[in-house]
């Protein structure tokens, strides 16, 4: 590694730790720790959302997929994100603010019952620990590739840096470091685009070479019988179910909007994130296409990005791009541990242990952040060695998304769904999704089918179960046109 690259990397790690620790003085209560004392402005929220969203799979996996299938990979950033982000900004964020909640499971608990709250928090938390483990492993692997550090050293260093600022500074530190990290990602990504375009003879040369050799690589959608990304599956499964479930109900994403200075900042932050998201393919899809145009000789598609970093970028800039990858993974890890700590502290602990004192939330939250990070550090090598576990856990989360979205939509837009119908729909919806998946159906169609089932089941079960008159429907449903 060039000394300039090494200096940039060390400088980044020191800077990110200092910025995080600097914000620790602001944390005096659990409200400060989990919701940044409701102080975040719209642009910090927007960039932090993008930092949380771009993870291990985004950088390496998306570039690899783009190498194989072309621009269709960008659907995960466009049709698979933008409509849901607009919905979140204009409908769900105002709703959560009106409800005055700390978390999405808390909203479901108020709208349905505490059992739904605990189930939602538990499943999300378990998946999050494994996801953080995977991100830690990917980061350690990157450090090993570029710096030659042993995997365990990479995990320890990352855990220590992220742990220091996350435990000390809470959501504010997480959000501000995310903001810095996203700026680095965009600078690194745009440099790749600029140098790549120049190397391949300008935009026209790039597009001509790409489409001459790969005629379908600039098509947004793939054929309906495509094995992995059939277009009906992308629109129905990703666009209609998985994306709204992620952007309107994902705790790690939405937590920074609940920590906004005002409701307007929260909504504007999500909308700003959607603008940034539109350009994320430049960072994560373009390198894959560039490797293809430059006829990269790589063994498998996921090596597209490392190939571009090694062959296109000069010293100093390759260190910057390396930092961008570290930043993407770190921002996923810090957001994951902070939001999971919140759900365990409040949504699980407060419900299951009635004697739990809310005054202890800050202390408990910090301890849990440390415990969750240590747990993820222990899980990291196991997940990597037994990749099937992570795939299994991800599949469980996907099975949960259809029913979860149905509960959220009917809970938010109608006044007729009942608490027990919510719980039974959640349980039976996951069972139905599992049964369809076992039939060998593409995951995108499973998500859509389980969502349709859950909508019907929730409506039907609500006909035969009793309403809870204590639920404040005016506060918990979205009804801006309703006369008070």
């Amino acid at each position, binding site marked *: 590694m060039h000394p300039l690259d090494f200096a940039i990397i060390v400088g980044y790690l020191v800077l990110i730790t200092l910025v995080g620790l600097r914000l620790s003085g602001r944390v005096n209560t659990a409200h400060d720790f989990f919701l940044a004392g409701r102080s975040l402005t719209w642009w910090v929220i927007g960039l932090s959302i993008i930092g949380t969203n771009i993870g291990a799979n985004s950088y390496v996996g998306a570039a690899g997929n783009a190498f194989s299938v072309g*621009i269709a990979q960008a659907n995960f950033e*466009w*049709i698979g994100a*933008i*409509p849901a982000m*607009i919905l979140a*900004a*204009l*409908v769900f964020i*105002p709703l959560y*603010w009106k409800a005055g909640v700390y978390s999405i499971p808390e909203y479901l608990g108020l709208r349905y019952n505490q059992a739904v709250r605990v189930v939602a928090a538990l499943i999300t938390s378990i998946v999050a620990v494994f996801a953080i483990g995977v991100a830690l492993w990917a980061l350690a692997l990157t450090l090993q590739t570029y710096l030659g550090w042993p995997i365990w050293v990479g995990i320890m260093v990352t855990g220590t840096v992220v742990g220091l600022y996350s435990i000390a500074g809470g959501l504010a530190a997480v959000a501000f470091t995310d903001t810095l990290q996203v700026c680095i990602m965009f600078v690194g990504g745009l440099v790749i685009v600029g140098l790549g375009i120049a190397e391949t003879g300008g935009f026209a040369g790039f597009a001509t070479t790409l489409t001459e050799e790969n005629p379908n690589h*600039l*098509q*947004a*959608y*793939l*054929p*309906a*019988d495509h094995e992995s990304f*059939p*277009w*009906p599956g*992308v*629109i129905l499964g990703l*666009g209609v179910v998985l994306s709204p479930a992620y952007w309107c109900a994902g705790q790690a994403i939405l937590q920074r909007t609940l920590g906004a200075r*005002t*409701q*307007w*900042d*929260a*909504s*504007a932050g999500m*909308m*700003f994130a*959607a*603008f940034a998201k*539109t350009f994320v393919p430049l960072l994560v899809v373009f390198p894959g296409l560039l490797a293809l145009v430059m006829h990269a000789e790589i063994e498998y598609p996921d090596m597209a990005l490392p190939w571009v970093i090694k062959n296109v970028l000069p010293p100093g800039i390759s260190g910057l791009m390396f930092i961008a990858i570290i930043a993407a993974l770190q921002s996923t890890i810090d957001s994951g541990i902070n939001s999971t700590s919140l759900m365990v502290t409040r949504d699980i602990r407060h419900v299951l242990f009635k004697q739990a004192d809310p005054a202890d939330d800050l202390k408990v939250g910090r301890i849990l952040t440390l415990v969750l990070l240590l747990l993820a550090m222990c899980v990291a090598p196991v997940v990597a060695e037994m990749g099937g576990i992570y795939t299994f856990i991800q599949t469980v989360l996907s099975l949960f998304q259809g029913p979860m979205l149905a509960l959220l939509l009917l809970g938010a837009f109608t006044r007729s769904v009942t608490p027990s119908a919510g719980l039974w729909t959640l349980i039976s919806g996951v069972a139905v999704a599992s049964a369809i998946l076992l039939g060998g159906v593409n995951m995108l169609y499973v998500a859509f089918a389980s969502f349709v089932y859950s909508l019907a089941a929730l409506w039907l079960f609500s006909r035969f179960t009793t309403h809870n008159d204590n639920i404040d429907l005016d506060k918990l449903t979205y009804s*801006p*046109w309703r006369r008070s």
Partner: protein
Amino acid sequence: MDFGDMPVAWANYISIGGFLLLALLVWLIPRKLIYTGATDHARWRDIRIWATVLITLQLFIYALFD
């Protein structure tokens, strides 16, 4: 027609139609709700305008990569 034979162009038409519908729905949201919590009522703070610009960008993208 077999399910797998549905033309890819339909996907672009559906996406563009969906975005146009969303652009209409956005403007059904009352103005006062959009400004809740805002320090002033400046025109640039109307995030329905942000949403419309964003949707226009998406329309351009899906028309371009058809």
